[in-house]
């Protein structure tokens, strides 16, 4: 599973790594690029399909909160 994520707080990467581990997944590639006001991350995740689906859903929630905190 490859996700392109927009982070307003670059420290969110720490949360993503922790969550990935907690759900029994791993990442095989991480690429983060700083933009003007955001950070663009492209992350490839590996893991059981069910866990990846849960990870995807939880990351969406995390990024929504990050977006709201940046307003």
């Amino acid at each position, binding site marked *: 599973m490859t996700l392109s994520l927009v982070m307003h707080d670059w420290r969110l990467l720490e949360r993503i790594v*922790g969550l990935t581990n907690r759900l029994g997944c791993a990442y095989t590639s991480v690429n983060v690029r700083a933009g003007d006001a955001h950070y663009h991350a492209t992350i490839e995740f590996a893991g059981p399909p069910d866990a990846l689906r849960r990870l995807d859903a939880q990351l969406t929630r995390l990024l929504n909160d990050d977006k709201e905190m940046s307003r």
Partner: protein
Amino acid sequence: MSESAASTGAQLVLDILTDEGVEVVFGYPGGAIMPLYDAMVGHPMRHILTRHEAAAAFAAGGYARSSGRVGVCMATSGPGATNLVTGILDSQMDSIPIVAITGQVRSELMGTDGFQEADVTSIMGPVTKRSVCVRRVEDLERTLRAAFRVARGPRPGPVLVDIPSDILKAAVPRMDFFAARPIATSPERPDDEAIEAALDLLRDAKRPVIVAGGGVRSANAVHLFREFVGMLDVPHTATINGLGCATPGDPNFLGMLGMHGWKAANLAVNGADVLFALGMRFDDRVTGKPDRFARGAQIVHADVDASEFGKIIPVTVALRGDLRATLTALVRGAARREMPHFTGWTAEAKSFGGPLPADRAPHGELSATDALDAFFAVAPADMIVATDVGQHQMWAAQRQRATHPRNFVTSAGLGSMGFGLPAAIGAQMAHPDRTVVAICGDGGFQMSIAELATLKRFALPVKILLIDNQRLGMVRQWQELFYDRRYSHTDLSDNPDFVAVARGYGLRAERVEDAGELRDALERFFRAKEPSLLHCACFPAENVWPLIPPGATVHDAMDGAPHAIPA
């Protein structure tokens, strides 16, 4: 838009809290947060000094759980902040809106292992919705405003704001507050097709059951839940966080669901062909073995958080959106249709039950369940109960008569011992004119026993019903049932004299050890205007029944018969 005359970061913090509607904060001072405490001198913001930071976090949670408003706690850097962790996670697990503010060492000392320095935002990351450190005073207002917005929803939870002491001391210009911005995502309602699909399932059902979870409380949708179940004459149950959603005395309410839930509730859910799960997250204490939970049922799951769908149990129809909007749509949709009434099925479901099984007290000794039965029989209807965690919590949950879910305050998801007394303090601050009772066991009570001083200082008329069985009772019960009665470190028979301790803190206190003394003692307990302790000295071997063993199903439920109390 209001105007702030703030001249320092600390004063700006207090002005923002006031502008956000905060009337009381729970906290404990220390070095790095001293500028904020200094700004409190003469400020109208009420501060409740707890005797431990953990209690401040639990109290903020109790305030928020009982009122629906954001609870606020604060502590200093390092150990002050780390002591908040459990209370913050407790709020995260039960989706309770709190904002925690921690002082941090001066910016120049961050990262130097300075005195009382800790990487608080990293520590708090996994236990909060967001955890941020304010590095520039210019960001202070925006960050605090955002913290309140994120804490409030759509799914509520805790947010931590860490502020270095130099930022608290920094001069800020006189400024106008910008009006608090609304949450970007307005409350969502599920799409019409999903609502129609859910109602189709319900219309065609033969054995439907509705479950209320904590999300009904969070969305302030209790009245809509009552309207929905009432118009269908359908059996319904609740998770521990949904207790109080049912109309008091509703004959179609089957009692609490789950490991220590009522038999009728568990059997009805197990036999259901359609299950409406409203604002619940299928905790393992509710489902037991997930692949055998309600396996004959098509499941309609309504939640504001899409990440809950399919997390534990596959769903047939997902209703994503604010529960109030969802229930409004369900009520309107059901009113437009020819919906059946489920009177016959409801009667059948109720027949699954029978009274709660309970152990009998040995001759001359006091049973905890007898004490709680007597307590709930005479308690005022609008009382707020805050429980601690353990056997007494489950006994209380089975017997409670809460008229609203905000009247039953309990640490459900995290199960944090030490929660009960500080949570009751928070609830009493939110509802100064109501009767607030902390029901505690002897183990958890001692984790927060210093908060008796908080009751005394602020003359909070919290009542403490102490169910003392001289054991860590729930662990003892599991050792009896699942570890061949090898009782390892669960004996608290050398407990202190609780009445003497409470009196030492200046409380009114009384002890009962005989069932015959209960009635009069409870009358005095409820009549007291000052903080009071009623110490119930109970026999130690009483168990919580029924019990669905972990990872098992309702058909494996134990009700105590094979496990009579040893002579």
